[in-house]
């Protein structure tokens, strides 16, 4: 029963973890999402793992009410975890190929599907991207913190009624 209730509450939540676990710390987001996937109270959350954001993710984003994007970041110190709200970008920005920033993804979602979810990005500072599996110690610690932060954000959305579909 508890699981059914959780599934219903979480039905509008989409989590996208970006990264490549074969590239060291780039697998940080994958580790975060895998940890979240195992949580009973997060039943019903849709989790997607991807190496980059692509136009296809707009379709899934348009069907969600809450979107949490988790990614490794070179803009923060290794293991440092940050959370920021993200909105559809004002301009398209420079697009070289078919991969997108979170802002561009939301803009694409809005333009193509007419709606966007509430969205946050959780970033885990990372530094080692050489070929190989496993996270550096600082980033592994950051993953644990990122899982807590992500859970707190999901709880906040649920409390605010944002996630209910």
């Amino acid at each position: 029963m508890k699981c059914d209730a959780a599934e219903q509450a979480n039905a509008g939540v989409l989590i996208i973890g970006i990264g490549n676990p074969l590239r060291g710390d780039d697998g940080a987001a994958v580790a975060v999402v895998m940890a979240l996937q195992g949580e009973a109270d997060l039943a019903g959350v849709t989790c997607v793992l991807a190496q980059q954001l692509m136009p296809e993710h707009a379709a899934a984003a348009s069907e969600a009410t809450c979107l949490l994007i988790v990614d490794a970041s070179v803009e923060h110190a290794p293991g440092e975890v940050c959370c920021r709200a993200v909105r559809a970008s004002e301009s398209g920005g420079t697009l070289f190929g078919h991969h997108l920033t979170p802002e561009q993804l939301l803009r694409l979602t809005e333009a193509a599907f007419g709606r966007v979810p509430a969205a946050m990005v959780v970033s885990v500072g990372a530094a080692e991207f050489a070929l190989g599996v496993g996270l550096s110690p600082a980033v592994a610690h950051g993953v644990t913190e990122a899982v807590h932060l992500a859970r707190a954000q999901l709880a906040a959305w649920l409390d605010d009624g944002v996630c209910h579909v």
Partner: protein
Amino acid sequence: MSATRTITIDPVTRIEGHGKITLQLDEKGKLADARFHVTQFRGFEKFVEGRPLTEMPSVMARICGICPVSHSMASAKACDALLAVEIPVTAVKLRKLMHLAQLVQSHALSFFHLTSPDLLLGMDADPAIRNVVGLAQKHPEMLKDGIALRRLGQDIIALLGGKRIHPAWVVAGGVAEPLDAERRDKIAQTLPRAMEIARRTIDWYKTVVAKFGAEIESFANFPSMHMGTVGPGGLLEQYHGGLRFVDAAGKIVTDGVPAADYQTVIGEAVEKWSYMKFPYYLPAGYPAGFYRVGPLARLNVCDRCGTPLADRELDEFRKHAGRPAASSFHFHWARLIEIINGLEVMQQLVDSPDIVDTFVRARARPNRFEGVGIVEAPRGTLIHHYKIDRNGQMTWANLIVATGHNNLAISRGVKQVAERFVDGTKLREGMLNRCEALVRCFDPCLSCATHALGQMALIVELRDAQGQVLDEMRRG
């Protein structure tokens, strides 16, 4: 003092990977030469040495995140040859099903996400809006169709192999798991909608293609040979056919070459200025024996597609573009025809009763020291050639990928486009985009051709012979 100048477009955008174009101008500002450089480096042939052959389909799939299925297919076929086994009929059908799903999603990516911004927003449009986001704003239905078609292809790959990218399902001797009736039915349910999108798109394309007369005329529009695999009766065959070459007049000059004999017809040259190799038709020598591969070449070499809707479209295409179609702008049209053919063949495959048979893998120890696997990847002919020792460990590998085959044609095409559109006195976005758009016709995958990671901003420089920057454009 020499007034010779060079224009560099680096990187070329909206392609898979990173390349660079240099346009060498003479003292009058007219084009003297053009080159398409590949600035990435791949080491796959070297670092697989010593690994067991059974790992190859999964390892080689890592060459590319766009067409991993094609690499695992070619690799598995090379391994089949090393085992000297004939794989079960159902395994062939299942491999074909995944291979065509990959073709559909890859062609959809090329057409909808990478090319349609040029077609719908204009070659001269501001690059800030000439992309998928701009497309979503101006033509949301087109983008939604692209997303849906690509997703359908990816979902079929995931249903068969367990995940969308790098599934480890294609193995030496067949496939790892059979298809059950439930997943077969799910696949079958997706095909009608995909066909609806494909037909709507090709009908639309035929209404706009005439607007691109200047591009059709100058986008690698020259006589050349074409190469691709064909099946029995000369039918379009992307999974398992013999190599066929046609000349510039469409005459078959070589036919039915089995994979193991590819080196009797294909040579490989190298140049100092690119990490990509330059394959050529061996009997004609280098560089005279340059040829094109990919969807356009496949339609030029085959007699028929072998499915009703695609054959109807092929007739119309040939009426409009000629046979062989010489302009590389027609790669786009050819992709749409191949999507239709792919969906028709996929329907036939899921309708066949033995598609759910459980006998899907032939098991054997290595029985040969050398094996070759060839498939038609979305971008063209893909060759994996392996040698092993007595323990089944890799001692040597050679890969020839689609973008490599097209290397010479792309460089010559860039020169033709630049002659038509580039004014050497001042850089303009539209003329440079046309150089890039020509490259995009071939949908090159430089990650496959070399393999590297990273991204650079676009910088275009106009320099004189002394290296002084006369003009510059930047993106990003």
